């Protein structure tokens, strides 16, 4: 059964179809949120919240975008709202990154300095960079997902990349 059929059935209230849809997109969603939050635990929690929202709003999905893109839109907005509500302390993220560094060390792998730099920049800049350059969405699509103008997305991505590059070259010099 392809995705379209599953969506049609899920919209009619078929639990099995919706379960399959969510299961198929689960790992994609967790991985996206991990890149945006840089915190595996928060990513898992947000994935659960996104799925709950999806169960509630599945009737409103119009099929214009891919189902995974629709889920990303929900997840992005949930994360933005969460950040606005309770500005999480940076120490949370630092802890998660420390844990990841430890995991990298255990595997005898080199740590990616770019993750430290990405953690320093604001999530409203990090998100469009991830969506544009990792997932390949267009500026227009990102603007629609985040509820901001296309021009704003462009400038955030461009300035974000510049500041990441600057920070990385400073780190290299040190």
């Amino acid at each position: 059964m392809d995705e379209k059929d599953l969506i049609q059935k899920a919209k009619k209230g078929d639990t099995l179809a919706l379960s399959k849809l969510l299961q198929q997109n689960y790992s994609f969603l967790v991985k996206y949120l991990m890149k945006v939050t840089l915190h595996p635990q928060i990513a898992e929690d947000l994935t659960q919240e996104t799925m709950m929202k999806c169960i509630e709003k599945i009737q409103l999905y119009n099929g214009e975008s891919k189902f995974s893109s629709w889920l990303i839109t929900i997840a992005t907005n949930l994360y933005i709202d969460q950040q606005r509500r309770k500005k999480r302390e940076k120490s949370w993220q630092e802890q998660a990154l420390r844990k990841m560094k430890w995991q990298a060390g255990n595997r005898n792998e080199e740590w990616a300095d770019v993750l430290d730099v990405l953690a320093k920049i604001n999530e409203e800049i990090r998100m469009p960079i991830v969506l544009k350059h990792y997932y390949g969405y267009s500026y227009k699509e990102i603007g629609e997902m985040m509820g901001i103008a296309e021009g704003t997305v462009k400038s955030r991505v461009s300035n974000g990349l510049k500041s990441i590059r600057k920070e990385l070259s400073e780190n290299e010099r040190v």
Partner: protein
Amino acid sequence: MKEYKSTNREAGVDEEDELTVKQIIDGFEKMDQWNPVSTPNLQWFQQNIELERKRIRRKQWKDLITFIFVAASVLSVVIAIVYRQPILFLYFQFVGIILLPFTFIKTRKRVSKE
């Protein structure tokens, strides 16, 4: 993940940016390796969906009951005023009509601010 080189060319990304983008992608790929995701089984999703649907139904009932209760209270107060002091009712209606344009102006301002 789409092929980043093609999207970058389309986006007008210069070579320096391309190198930064490559570092970002490599970093994220490493992060994916360090944090493997295990997808729960289908039954887990089904159980969660059923639980969430029950919660939504309960919430909808609660909202409906609250709405009916508030509506009935407001209506009984209005009926009591109309029967006992019709002048007071007309006075409130008059004040309401006068204040109506102001609420529109306020709403417009809020929307334009956003």
